């Protein structure tokens, strides 16, 4: 009876051996991973330095102006400016810059890899079949699982944070780029061909511009997912606002948690509204 009630088989996986193998791999190729690690770290600190050059009042002014322009309402522009001002007020301006530099680094890498991949997948049925389950996995795998190999190969700090964030955030830009290009009206593509467009002319002059609004929606999502992941990445030593949240959790400091959490929310909302507004404005011009 027991045989029917309880799962009777068991594959004894030698987990230690697997871990050992991976660890060995990372040690053997340490030089290679170090190059990437240093490169990423330098990239993040470069972005951080550049963000540091922007005086606080200028950034607030720019955000307010952009909000005004995109929404067409002065009040909303003022509100956006005030929200950013609040972050400075509660003393998180520098931490915000650190967080932003990690997010930006991840988004830049995501776009550099994701846009071409999306284009490739859109035009190739085989590549699409292979990529889909991989993308599904990347999106549904619990995010903490990414942290382990990231730490193993790149140790702690901003570099593994950028890697883990990129893996997590690259999916929507690949997906929506591919989807956007596929759903371009076939008759428009036929027209492009009928007028003697080469493949690359069709791609650059017709498919991508026609797909742009949807591609931009993918970019927006990538940005949002990077923002959410960067907080999780504080667990592997990413500094910035996420680290502040982590400290609050560890020390059970409710106020610190609320303030740092609010700062994260404000940044996310501002980035979302500003990029989305840009997509929408762009779309109106187009259609």
């Amino acid at each position, binding site marked *: 009876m027991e045989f029917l009630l309880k799962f009777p088989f068991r594959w004894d996986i030698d987990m230690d051996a697997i871990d050992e193998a991976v660890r060995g791999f990372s040690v053997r190729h340490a030089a290679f991973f170090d190059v990437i690690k240093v490169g990423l770290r330098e990239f993040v600190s470069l972005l951080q330095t550049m963000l540091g050059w922007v005086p606080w009042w200028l950034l607030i002014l720019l955000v307010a102006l952009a909000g005004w322009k995109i929404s067409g309402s002065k009040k909303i522009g003022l509100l956006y400016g005030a929200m950013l001002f609040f972050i400075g007020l509660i003393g998180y301006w520098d931490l915000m810059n650190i967080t932003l530099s990690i997010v930006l680094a991840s988004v830049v890498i995501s776009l550099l890899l994701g846009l071409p991949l999306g284009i490739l997948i859109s035009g190739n049925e085989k590549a699409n079949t292979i990529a889909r389950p991989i993308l599904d996995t990347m999106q549904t795998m619990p995010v903490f699982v990414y942290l382990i190999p990231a730490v193993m190969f790149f140790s702690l700090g901003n570099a593994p944070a950028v890697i883990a964030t990129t893996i997590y955030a690259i999916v929507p830009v690949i997906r929506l780029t591919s989807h956007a290009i596929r759903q371009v*009206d076939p*008759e*428009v593509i*036929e*027209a*492009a*061909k*009928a*007028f*003697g*467009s*080469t493949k690359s*002319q069709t791609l650059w*002059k*017709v498919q991508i*511009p*026609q797909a*742009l609004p949807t591609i931009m929606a993918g970019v927006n999502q990538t940005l949002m997912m990077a923002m959410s992941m960067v907080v999780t990445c504080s667990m592997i030593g990413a500094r910035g606002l996420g680290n502040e949240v982590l400290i609050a959790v560890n020390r059970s400091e409710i106020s610190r948690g609320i303030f740092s959490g609010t700062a994260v929310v404000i940044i996310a909302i501002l980035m979302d509204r500003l990029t989305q507004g840009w997509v929408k404005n762009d779309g109106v*011009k*187009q*259609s």
Partner: protein
Amino acid sequence: MSETIIHVENVCKYYGINKNAAVKMLNEGVEKDTIYKKTGVAVALHNVSFDVKKGEIFTIIGLSGSGKSTMIRCLNLLHRPTSGKILFKGKDISEYDKPELLDFRRHKITMVFQNFGLMSHRDVLGNVAYGLEIRGVPKAEREKKAMEMIEMVGLSGWEHQPISSLSGGMRQRVGIARALANEPEILLMDEPFSALDPLVRQDMQFELLALQRKLGITVVFITHDINEAFKLGDTVAIMRDGKVIQIDTPENMSANPTDDYVRAFIESADKSKVFRVSQVMEIPTCMMRLHDGISHALNEMKRNGVSSIYVVGDHMKLEGIITLDGLLKIRQENRPLKEIIVKDIPTTTRDTLISDVLPLAAEAKYPIAVVDDQGVLEGIVTKAAVLTSLL
């Protein structure tokens, strides 16, 4: 006799794997549907041959699925024929290498599409200049040429408008301007006017004829409308199930149809026997409910500029009509609306043939109401709509 510009010889196009079996069955005279069921091969074209002469309008007519769209796409190799020859000025286009094919499409042959195939991210000018742009014409030059074309199709002043702000007829003008900007020798038109309103369609047909005569361009024109085919075509080819049944001038075809299918097609040229009420009916703009007041009725009439209004009850059930005269009368005497509803009004159903509504339309004082078998108002048919559908 002018020279042949396109010579199509025994062109076949099959979709599927087991083509040999399909060809064998075709030669035995098996129906296309049976072949598809047995072999999985879809026969789009089978042994199609015809000649297009320089400077003529060659129309191909057939129902959907007859292979006409596949055929026209073989002429610029958007589709590649499975077998057969297509000669352009004596040279087989399927033997073109890549640069030759691009050159052929860029200079010799362009196309106009049923749903326009315009690029919404470009304005009118950008669309018209597209063909010149991809063949590398400098910006100033291609925009000058595009402006000429825009003027020729009557869209001056619209060059910087986005496509979305244009009506269907205007969009197709852009499509035609784009196709002509390349100065092609052959213009392929795949049901270019099918998506347009009947009245707009007639304008466009007329203008196409004028343009074609002026430019002396060769046109291959696809349509499913026999009237359009006869009106435009110097030569008409009828296709059915991937085969050409008859090629002739419109006059000869009317006089000597090859078989019953062609005859049936030609007979349908009298539209009143083909068109049904549903194709000409409009949404009633001027309507009121039984319990709406007199002033509401007057406002509705004023707003729509009409002198009668439809009265509907619950669930859009048609009650009758109220006229302006009647309204003015009871407004002074303060009597209820109910008294002046004209119940005895002409009605018809959406599946009625136009020829059957004609006598009704000729006599009716008001637009004819279209109702279903429950008496629910579905639309109206105006006298003007009935008469213009017959033009």
